[in-house]
C-alpha cells in the first residue's frame, strides 16, 4: 500500500478529512498518518485514534504493519 493510496482511503472514509501520510521505512508498511477532521471535535484522543484505525482496519496487520497517528480536530 502506498502513502497516497492510504491517504485516499482515509479521506474517503472520513468525509471532509485532510490526511497526510508518510512512509516511515520506505517499505510501504510503516506509516505516520496525520489527519485533520471536524469529526474529531468533542471526541477523546483514544476515540479519535479509533476512527483513523477504523478507516484502514482491514489493512492493519496485513499490508500495514504499523501506524503512528496524530489527529487534529477541526
Amino acid at each position, binding site marked *: 500500500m502506498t502513502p497516497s493510496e492510504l491517504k485516499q482511503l482515509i479521506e474517503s472514509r472520513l468525509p471532509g478529512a485532510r490526511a497526510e501520510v508518510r512512509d516511515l521505512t520506505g517499505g510501504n508498511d510503516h506509516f505516520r498518518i496525520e489527519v485533520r477532521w471536524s469529526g474529531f471535535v468533542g471526541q477523546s*484522543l*483514544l476515540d479519535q*485514534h*479509533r476512527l483513523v*484505525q477504523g478507516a484502514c*482496519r482491514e489493512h*492493519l*496487520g496485513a499490508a500495514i504493519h*504499523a*501506524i*503512528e*497517528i*496524530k489527529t487534529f480536530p477541526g
Partner: protein
Amino acid sequence: MWTPDKIRETVAADKVVLFTKGSRYQPMCGFSAKAIGILERLTDQFTVVNIFDDPSIRPALVAFSNWPTTPQLFIQGELIGGSDIMEELAAQGDLRRRLEQAQVPLR
C-alpha cells in the same frame, strides 16, 4: 492460554501495565521501545507483558481492548492508547497527571 478475562485480570492487578513486542529490556519494535522509554522517564513502577511470550496473548488483548496494535498502555485497568498517544499525553504533562491520579510513585 490467555483469554480476554485473563487480560482483564492482568490490567486490574497492577496500576500500570504495558503490553509490548519484546521485553522491557529488549523491545523488538520501535514503537514498543518508545513506549517503554516514555514510561521509564516517569516511573519505574510498571508491569510489562511481552506479547511474544505466548501466541494467545495478542488475540486475547485485541479482543479485550478492541485496539488493533501493540504497544498498549493501561492505567488502573483503563486503555490509555499506543506509543503515539503516550507521546502526546507525555508532552502535555497529562501522562504524569494520570499516573499521579493513580498514586503511582514517580521518579
